[in-house]
């Protein structure tokens, strides 16, 4: 089922990196909605978790944002000519990682079982590989709901409840 961020929440929720990044970055299309959603999760004491690979996604986008802003070049080009360029994002990465841990976000491991399940979800749900890993970890750890702004997760709404604020998904 596709649900709104404002609908009744379950006791436990898998948080996709898109929600965290939108809340963190002022330029995120869904910044206000995701910020309110994180506050609601905190206020209602909802148990939240995400896969370890979400941290990698968050770090990547934070680094990309900072390096591209400072250099005017795409991250890959900038990094290849000067690997030190990523150091400019260090404070953002350290701060947000620490905040995520302090807010009590559980970091779930991605093991072989989850990866094999993820392989099947590629074909069953027509998901791209990373999204299929997120889904596999969600289900393996018995979460029944996922919060995301990524419309590709619409294909998973038969398996988990999908909470979102993305109007594309709520049509």
């Amino acid at each position: 089922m596709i649900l709104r961020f404002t609908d009744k929440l379950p006791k436990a929720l898998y948080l996709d990196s898109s929600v965290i990044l939108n809340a963190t970055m002022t330029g995120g299309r869904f910044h206000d909605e995701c910020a309110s959603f994180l506050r609601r999760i905190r206020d209602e004491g909802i148990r939240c978790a995400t896969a370890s690979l979400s941290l990698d996604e968050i770090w990547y986008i934070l680094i990309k944002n900072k390096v591209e802003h400072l250099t005017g070049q795409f991250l890959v080009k900038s990094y290849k000519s000067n690997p030190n360029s990523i150091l400019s994002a260090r404070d953002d990465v350290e701060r947000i990682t620490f905040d995520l841990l302090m807010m009590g976000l559980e970091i779930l491991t991605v093991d072989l079982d989850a990866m094999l399940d993820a392989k099947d979800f590629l074909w069953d749900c027509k998901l791209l590989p990373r999204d299929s890993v997120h889904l596999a970890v969600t289900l393996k750890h018995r979460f029944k709901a996922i919060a995301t702004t990524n419309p590709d997760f619409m294909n998973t709404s038969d398996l988990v409840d999908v909470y979102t604020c993305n109007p594309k998904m709520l049509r």
Partner: protein
Amino acid sequence: MGKIEEVEIEEGCIKLPVEFIQGLKPKSKVIVRIDRFGLVIKPKIDPVEDMIGCVKSTPKDIEKQLDERVEEDDTEIY
């Protein structure tokens, strides 16, 4: 407040940099945590409020960026 890179231990007590202490208000609480890099001491703040909007950015399609993270080309942005 600057990050503490090193602290001294004197007579069993941890000596913190003056700048760190001066950055705290009276009755401030701190969070002390041991992680793989050692002892981490930070002023106690609401981590959710600290995180929200802490990265100033131009408008971003984050969903697209997550999808296309390895598809950048070598052209200039500007």
